[in-house]
């Protein structure tokens, strides 16, 4: 049996890597790198889940680790890699609202905000330090994923932002709420469908959501407030 304290130390180190991966998703311009980062992040999550299984011995955690490994480390990245090859775009250089530097600074703010928020919310529960940190990282990851979704232009990056956000939810779930296992499976199925849809949109229509919007607008009768 491995020492629990040692395991805890390893998990904490993994937390740091998870945060670094989130930061990389925000700022990396090469699509291939973003994908790799996401794969690594998912792998880290699977590892965290596995280590937690070793600590607590709940079989769901082991299943979750396996499921994450299969879907998020192998299947989804494989799909996305194929899309990237097809659309022949290797970089996402454009940002809306926030430039990468600002985004990173904002992310630090988000982590602090999550910390402050959760420490107030969990005041009443006697949560161990590890679990509390897990929740903070999970929430930060969710928010940072959302940040990716609106600050980056390409559909692929947006999808990866969403996936990263879901990783945050998963993390939060592992440490705090313990979602029923069936829900985890459903979420993963959702993700796979999302990736499939993304592939259709990205390959079939265009690589950039801007272009896609123009095409949509040409078809619709009512155009939003922009014409005013």
């Amino acid at each position: 049996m491995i020492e629990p304290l040692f395991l805890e130390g390893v998990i904490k180190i993994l937390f740091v890597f998870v945060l670094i991966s989130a930061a990389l998703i925000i700022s990396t311009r090469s699509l291939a790198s973003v994908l790799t980062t996401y794969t690594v992040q998912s792998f880290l999550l699977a590892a965290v889940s596995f280590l937690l299984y070793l600590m607590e011995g709940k079989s769901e955690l082991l299943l979750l680790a396996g499921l994450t490994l299969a879907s998020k480390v192998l299947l989804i990245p494989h799909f996305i890699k194929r899309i990237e090859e097809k659309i022949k775009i290797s970089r996402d250089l454009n940002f809306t609202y926030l430039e990468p530097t600002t985004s990173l600074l904002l992310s630090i703010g988000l982590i602090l905000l999550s910390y402050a928020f959760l420490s107030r919310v969990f005041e009443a529960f006697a949560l161990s330090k590890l679990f509390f940190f897990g929740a903070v990282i999970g929430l930060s990851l969710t928010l940072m994923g959302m940040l990716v979704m609106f600050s980056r232009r390409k559909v692929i990056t947006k999808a990866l932002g969403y996936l990263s956000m879901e990783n945050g939810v998963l993390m939060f779930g592992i440490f705090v709420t313990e979602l029923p296992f069936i829900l985890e499976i459903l979420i993963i199925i959702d993700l796979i469908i999302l990736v499939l849809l993304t592939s259709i949109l990205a390959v079939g229509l265009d690589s950039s959501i801007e272009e896609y919007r123009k095409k949509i607008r040409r078809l619709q009768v009512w155009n939003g407030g922009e014409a005013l």
Partner: protein
Amino acid sequence: MLEALAYGAVFALVSGTVLPLLYRSKNARQASFGLSLISSVLLLGFAGTVLYTGKEPSFPAFGFLPGLDFTLAADRLTAGFVLLIAAVLPGVSIYSLEYTEHAKSEARKALQAALTSLFVLAMLLVVLAGNMVGFLIFWEIMSLSSLLLVLHDYSSEENKKAGFFYFVMTNISTTFLFLGFISLYRLTGSAEFGPLEYPAGALTLPFLCLFIGFGVKAGLVPFHKWLPYAHPAAPSNISALMSGVMLKVAIYGFLRFLLAAASPELWWGVLILIAGSLSALFGVIYALKESDIKRLLAYSSIENIGIIFIGIGLYVIFRVEGLETLALMSLAGACFHAFNHALFKSLLFLCAGSVVHATGTRNIEAFGGLVKTMPATSALFLIGSVSIAALPPANGFAGELLLYQAFFQASALSANPLLTVFMVIALSSFALTGALAAALFVKLFGITCLALPRSEESRLAEEVEKPMLFGPAVPAVLCILTGIFSKQILSLAGWDIEFPDLLLLGLLLAFIYAALFLAVRAKTEIPDRISETWGCGFPALTPSTEYSSAGFSEPLVMIFKSIYRTRIVHRPEYFDGQESLFKNGHVEIRLLRFFEEYLYIPPALAIDSLSKRVAKLQNGKLDSYVLYAFLAVLTLIIATGVLV
């Protein structure tokens, strides 16, 4: 028995609403107006009995929503205003028999007849409503049905603007009423119109909300601007109803609240009195300059609403000061003037409708000589003008006399010198209003009916059909009767106040005039001589040498020059951005529309630009929407963090 009369009237009006919609024939429309006539007789019986005997009918409550019952109720205040409706309705109904038939298409005729009945029904039920729920529901029906009637001729740009203006203003009114009633409900915990026994200060919010809400609907300055737009757009019979009855319904609502409030405050009375005086004065000053006959009458309505509010203000002040007799006299003055105004203003609007129908224009500069071409209408118009100018013994005089009497005795307020000074100022402005109103109607009647026709349309005008003469004849007769028998009517209604007997005065006046006429006639030896007026050396006198409307009011315009300020507007258009190639331009010199430009347009523009900014949020960009979601989540997190 009493209840049956009220139910009968309501039933008649409901059938009058449905009938023209089911059968699109002239007969159905005639029947609809006939039913209005029947309902007015029933209401007369109902209101007269309640007013005379003081017996209050009891109506069962109708379950409307769980916890919200809808009840009818009638006390003497209600009866007074039901009587007002019953007095205006016959004239308008008879008039509409013919007038509605001039509408452009069958559908419009049917719609106009149906909506007229609905409008009257809604006004009746607002007055009869026993609690706030029914009041607000029927208030809204009243507003909407009148809006549709204002938009009757919806194809013209001007009418669309009028309708929109009215729509906005009436919604502002309803919003404030809701606020007022909700704050009352929070205070009392019931939707009934019960006595409000609360210490001073507790009723401030409801008072202000209801004052604004009812003030907007009644057309009190500075919320009056919808009136001069809506009346020219509306058909004349509807103008008669709106000005004659609907404005009074607002007065009724306001009085209902003030009478229920057990301890009104002095500043309420002062505020009402100031608003009333300003409305009266501004109304008549703007009317003097106006040359659109219906707009002129609309401004005159503002003036008269001001006079009624002066009476209400006096009532509150005297009540706070503990002078019960004077308070009662002021209240009687306000109510009686409201009743009288309903009569002569509907009479004037109906006559104006006939004149506009006969000549095809609303511009009084184009009228003239109608006394020869339309003698009966002119005679009715004269009665209306005499009444509204408050000449004895017509009813306008009787109502205003009550207010003057109350004002004169305000010296009883000697305890508060500041208040006395204030009352003197209010009295003088009230007197000025009276004088200007007389000048206004001398001008209106003189320019419209006397002298030579100023235009071809006026020369060729023909007297209108019988119903359009019998209709206005009803309020005309009532105007004279209520004036002459004012003392008797007031005492029948239970107001035994010190008041001169106008019957005696009328007889005396008639006798003096007759004696003078006969004396002069007997004395004079020169026989009647018919010749041409001296034309200052011109070969022939043409209508262009006549006194014009603008010319008549010029001296008064000079006096009030500071109020009638002009504005020069020019809007050039250019081909290019540097403004060097002139393309087109519009230049006008017009009266400064003070309230509109400084009070109405700025908030409207602010709301507009705010809406445009809000609309920009919906820009069709996915990124922005995700950003909003992100910000919403952040706000939620921060809010939860703060609240926990």
